[in-house]
């Protein structure tokens, strides 16, 4: 069965000034699946991720060639509003970065700026639902008004996930969401990623190969700016087609 693509990247080149960071990357992201991006540090996987919601726009001298089609529409077309795009493609960052406000306000911020609710109680519902989906509700329901910065690292990261899903995006990009977390918090987030797949299309950058194997259905291997190999996760890890992929996943380098 062929799964339709949510995002279709065609011949993407990314330049930071004179330096080219991505070379001719083409990749299809299947809908309601988790795609893992793996590869050694500096291979361009985070840069690639940031192309998908145009976060590279804020980097001076960044320049992009090629097409990124989200539901068959090029997100780099002049008619696309980047603000609207980012409500459709949410992002969770490497380091938990909650706003220095209350837990409630963190989750409510997105719905607030996009006016996604009609009444205070509707907003309360969005906040509760988002926190429940991010598996954080039970831990924070009694202290929603406390500053988010007082939560532990793992809780903060789940809060960031709740914040991202509160605006009800279609795609969630995760840039090494567990790299700053301990194994227990990591396990919780991985579990969460698996559940989120029901409603969202996920793309996760990770350095942890076991994590990629555990949470993703499709894996893409990047190396020095090139997309070397992509395939169904199980197949890629057991029978890599490319020498470099094999070298990386068997731990010979990277």
């Amino acid at each position: 069965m062929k799964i339709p693509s949510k995002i279709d990247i065609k011949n993407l080149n990314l330049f930071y000034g004179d330096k080219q960071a991505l070379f001719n990357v083409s990749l299809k992201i299947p809908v309601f699946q988790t795609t893992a991006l793996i590869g050694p540090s500096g291979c361009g996987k985070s840069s690639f991720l940031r192309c998908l919601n145009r976060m590279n726009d804020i980097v001076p001298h960044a320049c992009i060639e090629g097409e990124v089609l989200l539901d068959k529409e090029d997100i780099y077309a002049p008619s696309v509003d980047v603000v609207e795009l980012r409500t459709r493609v949410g992002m969770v960052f490497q380091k938990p970065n909650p706003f220095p406000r209350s837990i409630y306000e963190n989750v409510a911020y997105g719905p607030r700026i996009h006016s996604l609710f009609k009444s205070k109680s509707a907003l309360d519902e969005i906040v509760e639902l988002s926190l429940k989906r991010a598996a954080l509700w039970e831990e924070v329901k009694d202290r929603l008004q406390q500053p988010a910065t007082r939560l532990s690292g793992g809780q903060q990261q789940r809060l960031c996930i709740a914040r991202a899903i509160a605006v009800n995006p279609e795609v969630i990009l995760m840039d090494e969401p567990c790299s700053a977390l301990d194994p227990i918090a990591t396990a919780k987030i991985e579990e969460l990623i698996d559940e989120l797949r029901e409603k969202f299309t996920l793309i996760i950058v990770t350095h942890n190969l076991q994590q990629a194997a555990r949470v993703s259905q499709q894996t893409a291997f990047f190396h020095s700016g090139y997309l070397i190999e992509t395939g169904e996760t199980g197949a890629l890890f057991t029978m890599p087609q490319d020498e470099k992929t094999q070298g990386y996943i068997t731990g010979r380098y990277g």
Partner: protein
Amino acid sequence: MEEAFMMASLSSLRKRRLKERCFRGAGLLSVLLALLFLGGILGNIIYKGVPAFFRTEISSKLYPNLLNSHARYVADSLWIVASDDVDMYYKKGYNGKLSPAQIQEITTLKEGGQIRLTFNVGFFTQSDSREPELAGIWGGLVGSCLTLFITFMTAFPLGVGTALYLEEFAPKNQLTHWIEANINNLAAVPSILFGLLGLVLFIHFLGFPRPSALVGGLTLGLMSLPVIVVATRAALLSVPQTLKEAALGLGATPLQVLFHHVVPTALPGIMTGVILSLARALGETAPLLIIGMVAFIATPPAHFLSPATVLPVQIFNWSRSSEMGFVENTSGAILVLLFVLALLNGVAVFIRRKFEAVK
């Protein structure tokens, strides 16, 4: 072999410890020296200035030449301010210009309980005067307030706006780089040059009335502008990039990122910078001398265009007088100015603490 190595490392450790002790000692010494100088200056000013908050009064019109020179115009009141010579004699025992006969008269008054030392209300409620016993700081204080208001109203919005634009919106190119470098340099330009600029721009070119709070405030505003821009940019730079990315990633517009996240986070830094630059403007004298606020003005300014002087300029004026009474007044006015400055700095510290506690 090993022993030699141990010995060498031990002696090196001892040397490093010694170096640390020397460094600590030097630091402590410099702190003590600084405190000594500061304490000396402050002690001297307090010693000289506190008597200015008290004045000698006489409840008898028997000896008119012991009273202040305006006493004959004043309607009947029980206690009349004594002349500065009497004041000095009564407070400190200086004979000054008093004749032996006058000293005898003072002694008589003292015996009759008709002379007293009381809190110098006039020092705070009256404006400048040629007579030290009648001179007060009210005019300078009002002038300072009006001037500072104009300074704040011009330098704050312009400075913060400039910094916000340069830091968050301006394209990073040669021109903005050049502008940034020049603003940084302007912050270090001697204040008297801003006085010259104010003189040419506001008085000669725009023709604003000369010793007014408006011109003074605008000139000090020019002077504060680069400082506020630099302080605000530093505060904005300290806002973590991850915070901006978090908001952008949720689909906030750059303006929402700025006003929902960047400015609130940077606000304590911005406010501290603004208040400190205002405190500097409040204590500034040189540029105001150039634009003519040095004139003798005996009435408090009624509005922004009326002739005004400010507290530091009044201190400067008084300090040029050789009369004992004015020497005292100078120190008294310095104490008031220091108090106001300490108050402003206290507000800056308070704001910083209050906002940082929220985080």
